[in-house]
């Protein structure tokens, strides 16, 4: 057992209890002087109820503007080994699939260059290496790239895209989220590594409306799988479920558009009225499946509160085919049209969703060349303060 440089009675309290302890994790790397000082500083935060980290200062790898976040101790004279304790974001593989060799390679690299502490994963999806000195940044990057890994995004760039498990292990995937995520990430390497946007831009790829990667809340561009035809029904399996599921109460009554009827023998779905909410499919996965005409809904503008308040994404394209053979050209074209407009007119630290609210969705759509359609709104406007232009006098040909 490594001898501890500082007493940490408060942190030690968090080694107790059944849930895995982050304090135990930190102590597993306590043979490093950096970790000893980290424990000392975090204990101080627990005593004083305040963070002792400073940010700022330009750190990074040559030629990139993102991927490394500068972190410094404000108690650097006391805890000298964490005076510099920078964060590295490493672009994760699609859907967070690994094999043991890949994990060991990452561990070996981080063992040589930093604290030995990681996040699997950071909030946006990257593998996070927590805590290195400035001196180690380039050597770490060299080792990573030689082993086939690259940094993720930070700052005002395209952040690391992420995706759900998709067709790799889910019967509900309406498009290939892993391929789309990988393709888009590779296509926009420049935008990922070199911040030149007004603020961050996030892509998230969910294979169905269950949205396991929270794309509608956590991304500027949510690519959410959906279908246009009929839910596939296996009536024999519905009967099996009827033995344990109260289909009227648990399925029909919860259907948001009341489009399911059950007569005790078979399930009838009014498919044109189905809004693809997934509830019935979630409850009876052996009996029901999304249809075969599959693609994605594209929603734009989600974000957390900073700066102008939290927003959920809103519908831009109700249905887009997501055939891998198309190289996702339509999605890329839409993305670049939005980036051009927002890049030119967006204010500093203004996310796309906030920009849309400032300039108006109608104006935004006109500029990027999308026609307004009723799927984009919950309801038409109720106020009569309309800005008319001459177009209203034109007769349709």
């Amino acid at each position, binding site marked *: 057992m490594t001898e501890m440089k500082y007493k940490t009675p408060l942190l030690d309290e968090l080694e107790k209890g059944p849930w895995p302890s982050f304090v135990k994790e930190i102590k597993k790397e306590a043979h490093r002087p950096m970790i000893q000082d980290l424990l000392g500083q975090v204990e101080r935060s627990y005593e004083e109820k305040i963070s002792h980290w400073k940010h700022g200062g330009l750190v990074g790898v040559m030629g990139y503007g993102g991927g490394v976040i500068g972190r410094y101790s404000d108690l650097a004279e006391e805890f000298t080994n964490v005076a510099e304790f920078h964060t590295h974001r490493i672009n994760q593989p699609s859907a967070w699939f690994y094999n043991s060799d890949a994990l060991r390679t990452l561990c070996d690299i981080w063992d040589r260059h930093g604290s030995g502490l990681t996040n699997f994963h950071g909030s946006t999806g990257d593998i996070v290496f927590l805590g290195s000195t400035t001196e180690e940044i380039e050597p770490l990057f060299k080792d990573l790239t030689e082993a086939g890994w690259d940094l993720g995004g930070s700052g005002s760039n395209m952040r690391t895209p992420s995706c759900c498990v998709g067709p*790799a292990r889910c*019967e509900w995937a309406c498009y290939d989220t892993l391929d789309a995520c990988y393709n888009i990430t590779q296509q926009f390497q420049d935008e990922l590594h070199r911040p030149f946007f007004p603020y961050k831009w996030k892509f998230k790829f969910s294979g169905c409306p269950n949205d396991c990667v929270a794309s509608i809340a956590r991304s500027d561009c949510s690519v959410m799988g959906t279908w246009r035809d009929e839910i596939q029904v296996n009536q024999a399996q519905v009967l099996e479920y009827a033995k344990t599921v109260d289909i009227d109460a648990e399925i029909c009554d919860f259907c948001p558009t009341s489009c399911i009827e059950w007569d005790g023998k078979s399930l009838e779905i009014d498919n044109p009225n189905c809004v693809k909410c997934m509830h019935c499919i979630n409850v009876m996965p052996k009996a029901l499946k999304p249809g075969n005409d599959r693609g994605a809904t594209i929603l734009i503008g989600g974000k957390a509160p900073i700066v102008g308040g939290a927003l959920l994404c809103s519908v831009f394209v109700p249905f887009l085919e997501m055939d891998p053979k198309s190289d996702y050209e339509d999605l890329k074209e839409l993305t670049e049209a939005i980036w051009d407009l927002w890049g030119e007119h967006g204010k500093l630290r203004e996310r796309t969703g906030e920009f849309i609210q400032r300039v108006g969705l109608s104006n935004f759509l006109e500029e990027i060349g999308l026609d307004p359609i009723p799927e984009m709104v919950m309801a038409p406007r109720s106020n009569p303060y309309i800005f008319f232009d001459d177009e209203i006098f034109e007769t349709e040909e």
Partner: protein
Amino acid sequence: MADERITDIGPPNYEQFLPPVIKKNYGKWDYHEILKPGVMVHVAESGDKIFTVRCGSPRLLAITSVRKFADLADKYCDGHLRWTSRNNVEFLLSDESNIEPLIAEVEEYGFPVGGMGNAISNIVHTQGWVHCHSAASDASGTVKAVMDELLPRFQNMDLPAKLRVAYACCLNMCGAVHCSDIAILGVHTRAPVIEHDDLPKMCEIPTLVASCPTGAIRPATVDGVQSVEIIEEQCMYCGNCYTVCPAVKINNAQTDGISIWVGGKVSNARVAPKFSKLAIPFIPNNPPRWPEVVEAVMKIVNVYAENAKKHERMGEWIDRIGWPKFFELTDIKFTKYHIDDFKHAGETFARTAQIRH
């Protein structure tokens, strides 16, 4: 000869990490079943099966533990594993007989199996005092204290529906907690203190002024130094100014704390995605185990578990019974802070006489 510097290669292609059974049945899965808490099987149209064992993690992992996971994956899964979007580890097995030995070994190592179906999955969370500059509270410690108590809800499937708990240590919300069944959110409650001597050296004033959502920051000359002033009554302590300018100190040991929000969701199942709403505006920081936060979360979870219908998420249940009933059942005091007064505040006012008496 100069070293060839490798850049812009992007992540490794995921295909090399997929287990053979996944490669063979990619996009051809037929259905899945949860066999028991934390264990599920996916069955392909071909009849092939892949078994998943899911276990919770503290997200912050030592490479010692990651190597252990790699060893377990070699021993039981031909080296194959993945992580979920909520920081759970998933071991991917093709041999059903390996499930129980794997569970025994991974739990022995300290990582509980569960988080599937109508249960609490892992709490997604942020860095807190372990690694963040603007944290109003610690993330890992609060999450650890809450999960120690919630563990049975992780290991069983006895909730009405899935319950998503998230933690963010400030309004930046790196954890994007704003659409969670229960969100635990660190809050600052006082305007930042400006270090005028440092500010001109560290910060660009126009950027700093632009960072404020309420326009509370304006340029000012203070003691002959070009700096800024803050209109305190306009400040709602988001800390965005601190993130762009380290000389505007938002952290305050005496007045920082935690708020609790409820009823959000991201999935489209049944009702549309929705934001979490304020339940408890402020609980003082009480490290190392934040007992008041743990108690508040447990109370909300237990009341929800007892009262919601099967399949109802927290927000759906509250919408059915009404917010007055929620506050009554949970013994949470409704205060002036619960009434929105930011942009579009009127959207949350009750503009109907439909009231439960």
